[in-house]
């Protein structure tokens, strides 16, 4: 209740008010945060599980999946290829000085190939596609949510999980290994280009060493990581988009969070996947 003093209403101070809520304790705040995190993980897990389950039962939206493959795969090609080229080129520049000192410039192809295929190709591609597509997915689905298009879809008997989420997840999982493979190849081209210009390395020497340095385990590691990264960035983008709160401002927040969360998850997951791949490589290959 405002207390009028003179011509101006002055609200009662919190110190005098009997209606002040008790300040939350540190432990209460911490428990609240923990509950929110657990709830988010639960909801995200449910969305991710449903997106996979939908693959094995109809109806399927093949046209939507193809459209998403075009948007995510073909649309991301320019940035992935451009980045791959320059990553390969920079790698040679950085390592060239060391190899020249030891007279081992012929090892350039080995190093670029192993680093690109095992690690840089999948991770850089994953982060680029997360920045481009996870944000796009989150903003598109978030905009649909706040304008009631998702409710309209449900009101007309369509399951948004099948129509919106599964096509995006399937498209991303299918296109990520292809994008990574192309990034690896273009990265090697970039590495060779700089090798030829700065180290005067021959094409036969570079490419022979690059191909011979790779083992089956490297290829398996390099092409299986993108599948996991693709699943992560697409499901995170869908989850953030379909859980927008707060109108258009919430859409902006969700878009940013989708990129940040999927990028962090890709980097963290990469550690565990690398450890697993190295373990399996020793056992199987």
């Amino acid at each position, binding site marked *: 209740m405002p207390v009028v003093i003179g011509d101006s209403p002055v609200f009662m101070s919190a110190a005098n008010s009997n209606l002040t809520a008790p300040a939350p304790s540190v432990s209460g705040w911490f428990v609240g945060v923990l509950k929110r995190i657990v709830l988010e993980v639960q909801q995200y897990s449910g969305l991710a599980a449903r997106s996979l389950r939908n693959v094995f039962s109809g109806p399927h939206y093949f046209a939507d999946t193809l459209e998403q493959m075009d948007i995510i795969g073909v649309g991301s090609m320019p940035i992935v290829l451009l980045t791959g080229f320059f990553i390969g080129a920079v790698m040679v520049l950085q390592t060239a000085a060391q190899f020249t000192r030891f007279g081992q410039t012929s090892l350039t192809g080995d190093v670029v190939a192993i680093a690109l295929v095992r690690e840089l190709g999948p991770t850089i591609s994953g982060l680029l596609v997360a920045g481009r597509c996870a944000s796009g997915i989150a903003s598109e689905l978030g905009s*649909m949510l706040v*304008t*009631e*298009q998702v*409710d*309209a*879809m*449900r*009101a*007309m*008997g*369509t*399951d948004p999980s099948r129509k919106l989420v599964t096509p995006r997840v399937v498209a991303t999982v299918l296109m990520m290994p292809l994008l990574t493979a192309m990034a690896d190849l273009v990265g090697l081209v970039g590495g060779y280009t700089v090798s030829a210009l700065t180290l005067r390395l021959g094409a036969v020497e570079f490419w022979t060493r690059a191909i011979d340095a790779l083992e089956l385990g490297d290829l398996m590691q390099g092409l299986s990581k993108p599948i996991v990264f693709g699943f992560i960035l697409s499901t995170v983008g869908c989850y953030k988009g379909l859980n927008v709160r707060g109108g258009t401002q919430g859409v902006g927040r969700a878009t940013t969070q989708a990129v940040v969360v999927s990028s962090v998850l890709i980097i963290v997951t990469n550690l565990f996947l690398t450890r697993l791949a190295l373990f399996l490589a020793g056992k199987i290959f």
Partner: protein
Amino acid sequence: MSGHESGEIVISFEGVTLGFDEGDILRRVSFSVARQETKVLVGETGAGKTLALKLAAGLLRPDAGRVEVLGHNVSGMSESELLGFRQKIGFVFQEGALFDSLAVEDNVAYRLREDGVDENEIEGRVREALRFVEMEHAIGLIPSELSGGMRRRVSIARALVNRPPVVLYDSPTAGLDPVTAQTIITLILRLRDTYGVTALLATHRLQDAFALANFRFDPAANRVVPAKQNGRPWAGSVSAATSFLVLRDGSVYFEGDQRAVLQSPDPYLKRFLV
């Protein structure tokens, strides 16, 4: 209770309660809608009108109580069961909720394609629905190229394309100028009196509700005419029963027909008549 006593009950709310973090929005709301009746939900912003419509469509689940529509216990069905049930419901959202990446034709055809209707049949039915709302000329446009009233009309076409027996309207005239609002009300009258739909309509404008109660669409003359002839209610084959339900603070504040609304001395009801 309902002004249309003799009809079969199509929509029924029994003790429905729904709340969110900030508290209960609907508290033990009970009402029913008979076949071919139009029940108008009136209330201030935040009274729970939109929530009631979404509960009827199964888009939300109540915290307590029961919602029955066309004999189905909507409040107890799973999402997969509701997807099939919603083929019998048409929903006109407040801002239209058209899919903004699809053209008008694809928006209206959406439900037909989801139901697996043959493509050769779809165009004809889409054009018929757009002709009904007088929007056939816009068939190739996308929603961003339409005005607010046009989007509302396309939304109605999308809702009626598969001839549902129940139509839910969420503030269909909100934000429109009086002339366009009248066009929308005419369409709703036309839909009611041509196809005999049962309707639940949420609005904060009582004049829209009075228009539904006082007028009918005459298919023979193809125009809106007074519902009464020589001072007597029109005895047509399609019932034009319209009843009112006022929500206040989440509860049913008033329920009755137009006469009861106009004759009520309640000061809160009179505020809607200004």
